[in-house]
């Protein structure tokens, strides 16, 4: 039988993770505001390419090139 205390802990942990995921890091926004709109867009596209490469590498087990 499942331990209700552990189940509750899991729910609390999930909720904490959910709230953490909703946190906004204002320092990142302030750093963006120091850039021009064009620089913000380039930085976004680079970050997205990196995120997709990491996801792809994770899924295929491939190593990333520097």
């Amino acid at each position, binding site marked *: 039988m499942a331990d209700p205390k552990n189940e509750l802990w899991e729910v609390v942990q999930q909720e904490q993770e959910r709230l953490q995921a909703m946190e906004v890091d204002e320092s990142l926004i302030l750093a963006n505001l120091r850039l021009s709109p064009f620089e913000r867009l380039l930085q976004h596209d680079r970050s997205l390419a990196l*995120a997709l490469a990491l996801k792809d590498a994770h899924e295929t087990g491939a190593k990333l090139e520097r």
Partner: protein
Amino acid sequence: MPTKPAPNSSAELLRRLVGSEVEFIVVGGVAAVLQGASILTVDLDLCVPFSQANLSRLLPLLVELDARFRAHPDRPRLVPDVEHFSAFRLLMLETSLGPVDVLREITGIGEFEEVSRSSLEVDLGDFRCRVLGLEGLISTKRAVGRDKDLRVLAELEATLRLRTLRHLP
């Protein structure tokens, strides 16, 4: 096996749209990024008038960019049939410069004319384009109200507050 999506080049895509004299307003995640929000978004969302004049400039560009229907990659590529597409409300496309969603209407705001009233011009160096302002982005995220929109809502509200504190338009 599905083909790997092209790497995004939002700046180049916007430059090509401006160069082709397409009327458009950037909405969605890229509009938020251009105004300072720290989010990652995969597709470029554009609100456009689906007039024959505008489609006759937009569709040939999309064909040049090898546009395909994202939900139906097995279908033939997009053709510049202005008459046919003038009745559409949404085109979800994969292009050689990344995914693009072309929208007639924005939830909570309206069609191009209404979206235009809530937009501002952004300087991208050698060209300029219009983007939906943060207040507009916030109102549409509230109107849509999915979990992922609510996560972005907090980021948009913080960006608007920080821009206001810094007296940015």
